[in-house]
C-alpha cells in the first residue's frame, strides 16, 4: 500500500492526434509500469487522464507520456490540474465522453490521423499461414489501417467508424481486452469470423449484382485471373476504388486508356515491394523511404522503360506506389507483375467510393469488381510526390496532397484573428479550415487543415462532391468559421457558392486574388513572420488578375495582408481564349505575331533580321508560311485566321502567364500539338533537360548560370503602373535563330540535342529573370509558388542564383505549389485581415 501523504492526483487533458493512434492502450500500459491508478477516456477535446500515484512515479508517468508515446501520436497541448486524491482500485479505460465542451468550440482539439499503410507487424501476420489472420483482407492494429476515410464522427471509437456494424467475435474481444496483446483496445479489430469480407462481382448490363457470390480468397483469385488475361479490374481500397491492369501488357493498358478516356496522362504503377520497384525505376534513398513510409504516397521516379510504353506514353518519370492495404498485398502474393493503379472514375469525376456507385458508373470500364462491406466515408485520392534536386540535397514537392497526409494540419507560427473557411481554387481544388488558436493566449498559434484533393470543379459531380466534403468537414470538426475566403475569379462555381454560403451562415466573405494566395501559402508554411516584407514570385498557368486579365507570371512585394504587384511578364494574347490554354501552338503564334509586327526600339535590328530570314515580308501583311509552319506547325490557312483574331482581339484576351510561355518554348522544341492533359507540354519541356540517367542520381545540369547559359531578355519599367515588365522577345529571337540555322533538321539525334540546349537555357533564363527582379525589389526573403515551380530544375536554379545574391529562398514543401495549395493562402489571409 502506498503512503497516502505522498499520493498525488492529476487530471491531464491532452489534445492533438491522440485518437485512433493506440493512445489509450499505451497509457494503460504506462500506468501499470508506474503503478498509477485512475482512468483514461476519449472525449471531444482529445483524451482526459485521471492519474493518481506517489509523486515520483506520477512525474515519471507524465514525462513518459511524451517520450514514449505511440508512433502515430502527436501531442499538441497538455494541460493539467492537481486535485485531491480519491480511492482508485486500479487503472481503467473508461467509456468515451461525448458531451460537448462549448468552451473549446473555437479550438482545434482533435486531429484524427490520416490513413496509414499496413504496418510490418500486420503484414507478417497476413502472410503467415499459421496466423489466424492469414490472408485476412482487413488486418490492422492501433498503429495502422484506415482512419480518416472510415471515421464518421469523433470521438474515435468503433461505433463512430465504418466498423460499427461488425460486432467482435469472442476471440477478437479477448484480444481487445488483453493489455499484453497488440490489439488491446484496437477499435477496428476483426477477423474472418466477425469482420468485413470481400466479394467478386461481374455486373450485368443494368449495373446491379448478379446472384453469383464469390467471396474471400476465391474472389481475389478471380480478380487476379482477369489481370492475367489482360483484363481490367476495379478494386476497393482505402479512400476509393482503383482500376488496375497488367502494367507490362500493352493491350491491357491501351484498353484501360480507351475505356477511361485517358489518352496520354501517365498512370501510377503499384509494385509488390521495393525490390520490384528497383527493376523498373531508379529509386534513391529519399524516394525509397517515402515509398516505404506509412503514408505511402505515389512517388515520381525515373522510368527504366521495362513496362508497357502506354503506362506513361514516353515521359521520363513513372509514378510508383507500394501496396498500402492488405487486399493489395494479397493480390501481389498471387500476381507477380507490376500493376497499373489509377483512380476509378469517369474522366474528371470524383474517385468512386461505394459499391453500388462503382458497379453502376464503371460497368463499361471494368471486367470485374472486388467490392467489400466496410464502407468508405470519405473519398480520398492517392497522394503524389515528386523528388527534385534542391540546394542541399533532394527536396520533395507535393503534386497532390491527399491520402496519408490529410487531415494533418499545417501549423502556423502565429495566431489568427478568427476561424476561416477557405474555398480554394477551381482546379486541383482543396478547401481549408483555419483555426485561430486560443484568442486569450498570446503565444497560442493557429493551424490550418486542408481537405483531400477534390479535383477540378468544372463538372457537376466534382462540384457536388466538393460541397459535400465542405459540409462533412464542418460537421466532423464542429467548425464555426467567422469568415469565408474565395478566389477572386467571378465565374468559378466555388466563388459563387461562397457568397451563398456566407449569406446562409450570416457571415462575411472576402475574395483573394489567385496569385496572392499562392505567395501567402508559401509564406505561411515556411513560418515567415507577420512583420517582414517578402519578395513573392507566383508563376502558373492561369489566375484571375486584379485587372480582369489572366495573370500567371507575377512578382509581388509585401506582407501577409498586403501584397503589391511589382512586376509581370509582358502580356500577350491568348488566341481563342480557352482554346489557347490547350494549344501551345496558338500561344507561340501569338508571341511570334508580336515579334513580327514590332519594329520599334530594341526590335529595329531584329526586324531586319526577321526579314532576312524571310519570316515576314516588308509590308507586314503576309508572313512567310513556310517559316511559321516550321516554327509552330500551323498551316498557312489557319495562320491567317489566327492573325485576324490576334490583331483585332477577337476572343483573344491578354495574359501574362509564365505557364503559357513554357508552353510556347515547348512548341519551339518540338511539341507541336494540343495537350491532352494539364501540364503535358511543361512535362515535355522538363523531359528535354538534364543528363541521361545515371542510377540513383537526381538530374541536374551545370549549376553556375553564366551569361552564355541564358538567353537575352529585358526588364522595362512602366512608370504609369509602377510595374517592372519582363520582355522575353530577345529570348524568342535567339531561339528562333538557333532553330532556323540548324543545318540538320532531319537528324533527330542532333535535333534532340538542340532542343535540350534550348530548354535548359530557357530555365536558366527564367531563374536569371527572377534574380534581376529580386535585386530591384530588395527584400531578403523570396517566396516562390505556383504550378510552374513543380518543374524539376527551376527551383534549384532559382534558389542557387538567389542565394548567391544574398536572398533566402522559400518554396512550398508541405503543400503543393500548384492550385492545391491555394486554400492555405486564402485561409491565412482571411485569418489575419482586420475586421471590416
Amino acid at each position, binding site marked *: 500500500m502506498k503512503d497516502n501523504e505522498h499520493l498525488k492526483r492529476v487530471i491531464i487533458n491532452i489534445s492533438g492526434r491522440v485518437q485512433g493512434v493506440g493512445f489509450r492502450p499505451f497509457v494503460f500500459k504506462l500506468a501499470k509500469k508506474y503503478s498509477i491508478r485512475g482512468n483514461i477516456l476519449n472525449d471531444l477535446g482529445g483524451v482526459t487522464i485521471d492519474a493518481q500515484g506517489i509523486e515520483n512515479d506520477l512525474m515519471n508517468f507524465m514525462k513518459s507520456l511524451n517520450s514514449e508515446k505511440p508512433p502515430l501520436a502527436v501531442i499538441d497541448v497538455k494541460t493539467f490540474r492537481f486535485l485531491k486524491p480519491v480511492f482508485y482500485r486500479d487503472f481503467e479505460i473508461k467509456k468515451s465522453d461525448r458531451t460537448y465542451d462549448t468552451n473549446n468550440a473555437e479550438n482545434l482539439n482533435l486531429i484524427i490521423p490520416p490513413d496509414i499503410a499496413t504496418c510490418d507487424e500486420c503484414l507478417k501476420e497476413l502472410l503467415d499461414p499459421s496466423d489466424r489472420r492469414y490472408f485476412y483482407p482487413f488486418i490492422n492494429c492501433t498503429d495502422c489501417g484506415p482512419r480518416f476515410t472510415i471515421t464518421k464522427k469523433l470521438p474515435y471509437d468503433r461505433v463512430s467508424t465504418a466498423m460499427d456494424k461488425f460486432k467482435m467475435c469472442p476471440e477478437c474481444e479477448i484480444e481487445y481486452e488483453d493489455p499484453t496483446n497488440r490489439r488491446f483496445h484496437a477499435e477496428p479489430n476483426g477477423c474472418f469470423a466477425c469482420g468485413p469480407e470481400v466479394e467478386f462481382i461481374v455486373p450485368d448490363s443494368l449495373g446491379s449484382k448478379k446472384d453469383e457470390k464469390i467471396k474471400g480468397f476465391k474472389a481475389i483469385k478471380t480478380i487476379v485471373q482477369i489481370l492475367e488475361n489482360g483484363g481490367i479490374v476495379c478494386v476497393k481500397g482505402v479512400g476509393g476504388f482503383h482500376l488496375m491492369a497488367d502494367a507490362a501488357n500493352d493491350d491491357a493498358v491501351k484498353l484501360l486508356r480507351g475505356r477511361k478516356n485517358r489518352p496520354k496522362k501517365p498512370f501510377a504503377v503499384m509494385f509488390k515491394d521495393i525490390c520490384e520497384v528497383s527493376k523498373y525505376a531508379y529509386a534513391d534513398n529519399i524516394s525509397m523511404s517515402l515509398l516505404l513510409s506509412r503514408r505511402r504516397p505515389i512517388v515520381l521516379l525515373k522510368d527504366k522503360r521495362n513496362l508497357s510504353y502506354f503506362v506513361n506514353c514516353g515521359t521520363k518519370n513513372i509514378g510508383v506506389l507500394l501496396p498500402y492495404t492488405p487486399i493489395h498485398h494479397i493480390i501481389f502474393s498471387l500476381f507477380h507483375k507490376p500493376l497499373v493503379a489509377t483512380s476509378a472514375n469517369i474522366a474528371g469525376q470524383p474517385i468512386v467510393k461505394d459499391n453500388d456507385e462503382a458497379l453502376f458508373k464503371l460497368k463499361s470500364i471494368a471486367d470485374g469488381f472486388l467490392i467489400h462491406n466496410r464502407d468508405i466515408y470519405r473519398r480520398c485520392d492517392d497522394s503524389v510526390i515528386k523528388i527534385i534536386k534542391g540546394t542541399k540535397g533532394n527536396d520533395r514537392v507535393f503534386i497532390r496532397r491527399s491520402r496519408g497526409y490529410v487531415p494533418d494540419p499545417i501549423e502556423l507560427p502565429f495566431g489568427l484573428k478568427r476561424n476561416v473557411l477557405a474555398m480554394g481554387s477551381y482546379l486541383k481544388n482543396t478547401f481549408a479550415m483555419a483555426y485561430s488558436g486560443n484568442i486569450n493566449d498570446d503565444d497560442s498559434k493557429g493551424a490550418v487543415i486542408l481537405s483531400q484533393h477534390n479535383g477540378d470543379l468544372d463538372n457537376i459531380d466534382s462540384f457536388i462532391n466538393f460541397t459535400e466534403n465542405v459540409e462533412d468537414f464542418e460537421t466532423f470538426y464542429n467548425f464555426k468559421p467567422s469568415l469565408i475566403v474565395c478566389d477572386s475569379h467571378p*465565374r468559378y462555381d466555388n466563388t459563387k457558392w461562397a457568397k451563398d454560403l456566407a449569406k446562409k451562415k450570416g457571415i462575411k466573405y472576402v475574395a483573394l486574388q489567385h496569385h496572392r494566395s499562392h505567395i501567402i501559402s508559401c509564406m505561411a508554411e515556411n513560418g515567415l513572420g507577420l512583420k517582414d516584407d517578402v519578395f513573392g514570385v507566383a508563376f502558373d498557368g492561369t489566375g484571375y488578375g486584379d485587372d480582369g486579365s489572366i495573370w500567371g507570371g507575377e512578382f509581388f512585394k509585401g506582407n501577409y495582408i498586403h501584397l503589391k504587384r511589382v512586376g509581370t511578364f509582358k502580356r500577350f494574347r491568348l488566341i481563342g481564349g480557352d*482554346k489557347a490554354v490547350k494549344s501551345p501552338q496558338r500561344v507561340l503564334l501569338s508571341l511570334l505575331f508580336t515579334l513580327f509586327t514590332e519594329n520599334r526600339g530594341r526590335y529595329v535590328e531584329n526586324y531586319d533580321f526577321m526579314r532576312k530570314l524571310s519570316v515576314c515580308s516588308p509590308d507586314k501583311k503576309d508572313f512567310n508560311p513556310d517559316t511559321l509552319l516550321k516554327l509552330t506547325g500551323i498551316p498557312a490557312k*489557319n495562320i491567317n*485566321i489566327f492573325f*485576324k483574331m490576334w490583331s483585332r482581339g*477577337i476572343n483573344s484576351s491578354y495574359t501574362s502567364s509564365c505557364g503559357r510561355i513554357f508552353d510556347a518554348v515547348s512548341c519551339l522544341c518540338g511539341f507541336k500539338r494540343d495537350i491532352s492533359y494539364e501540364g503535358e507540354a511543361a512535362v515535355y519541356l522538363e523531359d528535354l533537360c538534364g543528363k541521361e540517367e545515371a542510377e540513383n542520381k537526381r538530374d541536374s545540369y551545370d549549376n553556375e548560370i553564366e551569361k552564355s547559359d541564358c538567353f537575352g531578355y529585358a526588364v522595362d519599367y512602366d512608370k504609369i503602373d509602377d510595374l517592372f515588365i519582363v520582355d522575353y522577345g530577345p529570348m524568342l529571337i535567339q531561339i528562333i535563330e538557333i532553330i532556323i540555322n540548324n543545318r540538320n533538321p532531319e537528324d533527330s539525334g542532333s535535333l534532340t540535342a538542340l532542343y535540350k540546349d534550348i530548354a535548359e537555357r530557357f530555365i536558366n533564363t527564367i531563374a536569371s529573370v527572377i534574380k534581376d527582379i529580386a535585386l530591384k525589389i530588395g527584400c531578403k526573403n523570396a517566396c516562390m509558388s505556383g504550378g510552374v515551380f513543380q518543374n524539376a530544375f527551376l527551383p534549384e536554379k532559382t534558389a542557387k542564383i538567389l542565394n548567391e545574391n544574398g536572398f533566402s529562398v522559400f518554396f512550398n514543401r508541405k503543400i503543393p505549389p500548384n492550385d492545391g495549395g491555394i486554400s492555405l493562402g486564402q485561409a491565412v489571409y482571411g485569418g489575419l485581415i482586420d475586421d471590416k
Partner: protein
Amino acid sequence: MGAKPLFLSLGLIIEEGFLMEDLKKIINSVVQEAKKSGVKIVTGDTKVVPVGKADGIFINTSGIGEVLYENISVYNITDGDVIIVSGDVGDHGSAVMSQRDGIDMDVAIESDCASLWDMIELVLKQGCRVSAIRDATRGGLAAVLNEWASAAGINIHIEENEIPIKDSVKGFCEFLGFEPYQLACEGRVIFAVKSGYENRVIEILRSHPSGKNAKVIGIAGDKNRSDGRFKGKVILRGIYGVDRLLDYPSGELLPRIC
C-alpha cells in the same frame, strides 16, 4: 408566344453617306419577308443623322400580334417536358462574326434568318401540347434554356451530342474558342413540349423547310438526379457522361449581333 404576328412598325436611323443601294437591298428584303409572313408594316419613321453619329444604319421594329393559342408560357414548363430545337444552332452568330471580322472559313457560313410563325403555327394547329416556345436570338440556345430554367425554377438536362450544329459552325467555333450554343440564331425555335408529344412535333417541324434538322435535345426536370443543390440550371451531359453547367453567355458574345 402563340401569337400570330400581324403588324410591324419600322424605324430607321441612317448615317449620312450610307449607300442607297444598300438601303434598297435592306428595304427589299424587309418587303419580301413581310409578304412571306403576311405581316403589314403599318407605321414607321426615318431619321438621317450626320456622319459619325450612327454606325451605318440602325433598324428598330415593334410588333403586334394576336394571341391565337393561349397558355403558352415559360411558367408552364414542368417535370418531364421534352426540349426540342428546330434546327442547327449558332448559324447566325457565326455568320455575322465571320463576315464582320473577315474570317474566311472553307465553307461560307450562312445566317439562318427566317420568319417562324408559319412553322410554329403548323405545330400548334395540330393540337400538340406545348408548354413554351421561344426563338433563340441573342445569346443563342444557352440564353433561352437558362431563362427558362431560371423562370420555371426547374433544371433542364441537355445531351450535348444531340444538339444539331453544322460542321462549318463547329469549325468556326473551334477556331474562335466559342461554344455554338452561345452564338445567336435568327431562325430557330426552341420548344418545351409535354411528354408524349415530342415525336409528333419533330415530324411536323421536319416537314417544314425551316425545321428540317429539328431534334430532341433534352428534358426538363430532375427525374434522373437526386441533387437539390442545383435549381434552375441548365446541365449539359457530354459524350463520356460527364455533366457540366451550361451558363448564360457573357462578354463579347452578347453585344449587337442581331
